[in-house]
Each structure stands twice: as structure tokens, then as C-alpha cells.
């Protein structure tokens, strides 16, 4: 059980997701959530938390691997690359 302030604080601390915070505050979207946080005296952090940085790094690595695979596939079968174009 959390007050609106506690929910916004927990969101900023990375303890609950933005979806859960929206549910607990009635914010229509993340932009409104940010406005509510500002009005509730909670500065919105712009830096990633260590866990979020880790997730971002994983996602980046995955995207890079997929792109490398595509290039490799295209090199192996030039016909497919033409079709893809």
C-alpha cells in the first residue's frame, strides 16, 4: 500500500515499473507521470540505474548480434540481399 508520493518515489528509485506507477497515480502516460513527480517534489532522474544500464547493455549486444547475422546472411547469399533491397 502506497501513497501517490511513495509510488512516484518508488518509481524513481527503480523499485516499481512506470506501468505500476501509472496505475497507482492515474497518470495517462509517462510524460504525465514525470509531471506528477515534479509537482510532488520528486526530481526526475535522467541517469540510468546500474540494473537499467545492464539491461540496456544486454539489449544493445543483442541488436548488434542480430545485425551482424543479417550482414553475414546477406554476404553468404547475395540473391537474398537483392530481394531484401
Amino acid at each position, binding site marked *: 500500500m*502506497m501513497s501517490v508520493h511513495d509510488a512516484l518515489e518508488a518509481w524513481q528509485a527503480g523499485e516499481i515499473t512506470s506501468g505500476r506507477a501509472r496505475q*497507482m497515480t492515474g497518470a495517462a502516460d509517462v510524460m504525465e507521470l514525470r509531471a506528477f513527480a515534479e509537482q510532488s517534489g520528486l526530481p526526475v532522474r535522467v541517469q540510468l540505474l546500474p540494473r537499467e544500464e545492464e539491461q540496456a547493455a544486454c539489449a544493445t549486444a543483442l541488436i548488434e548480434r542480430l545485425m551482424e547475422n543479417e550482414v553475414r546472411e546477406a554476404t553468404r547469399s547475395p540473391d537474398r540481399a537483392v530481394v531484401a533491397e
Partner: protein
Amino acid sequence: MTSRAGLPIRLVVSDSGPLISLAACGRLDLLLEFRRPVHIPDVVKAECLRFPEKVGAATLAQWFEPDTCPAYIMPTPLLVAWQQAVADEALNPNLHMSVGLGDAAIAWLLRQIQSYPQEQEPTLVLTEDGPFGDGVIRNDFPEVHVLSTRALLRTLENFGRIPSAQAILDDIAHAGRQLARYLADRPGRPSPGTKTSWAEVLAYRRPDPGDIS
């Protein structure tokens, strides 16, 4: 986990907006959930009752009955100025001299409370007025907790005290009242390293009508 502990608020001061909204949906009883005395400046009461035909006014007139009103009506020196302004506006509808006097009455009351040791009287202002909450109170009364009607209702839902904040917001809208999008639940900072909080009481039993006084 972030620490949520705070200095419990001891009294609530209400602006006219939340009173009109809660009256519009017939839920003035929700003020009891604070389990704290609710103070209403005389000008705010007068504003609520000024136009008897407006949304919530009849309910508020009944609620403000002196013998049964569960809130404290606080006299301020601004009531005379407000009455004069209203009289002038009746003669000339282009004048808007009464605008802002309710906020001024709240500010006057908060200034009186400031003269007490602040740790003894942590105060919450219930308002729907963003410029007042984010301007005047944030700048001049940083020790005061600001809570909007929307934040009150959402928190009551989060604590299971009402089934749905949205249903109440819908009732307010259906009654013809346009509620501001303003949402704030901003703790006051009575002294360095402290902050106010108000919602802990919601985790306990339901309030009795006598709890408010």
C-alpha cells in the same frame, strides 16, 4: 527499499476546490480519512456558499451547518475584504476583486501556524489549485504538505479505502464539475532532513465520525 517514514501531519487546511469536488460527488465523508482536524478559513467557506445554484453548493450548505459541521471554520481578517469585493462585483460584473482572497486567507492561516514550533504542527493543504500549490506554498511555506484531490483519491484507492478513484472522478464530472488535472502529493520539509507524511493512518481501522475533531 526507499524509506517512506515521515513526520505525521497533524492538521489539514482545505481550499474550496476539493470541498466543492467532494460535495459534487457526495463524498465529503472522505475528509474523515485524514483522522486529523480539518480547518477551513472563513473566506473559503464563503466562497463555497457564494453561488447556491452551483454544483455541490447545496450539499456544502448542509455540511457547513454550525452544529454538525465536522470541520473548524477559522476566522481570518480577509473575510471583510472578501465581502466588500463580492459587493463591488455585484454592482460591476467586470470586476474580479474577490479572486485570490481564498488563497490569501489560507496563506494568512499558514503564516499563523508558522509561528508555532513547526515540528509540533505539521500541516497539509488540500487544494486543486496548481499555481497556489506549486507557487505560493512551495516558495513561502516549504514546511507544508500539499495534496491535490486527485492524489487523495488515488491514495485512498491504493490503500483500499475506496474501490475506485476513477469512479469518483467520473461522478464529479457527471455532476458537472471540471476537475483540474493537477496531481500533487508533496511532503513538507519542516526542518532539514525531515518530511511530512499523511497516509500511514489509512493502514489502520476506518475512522469514526468523531475522529476528525
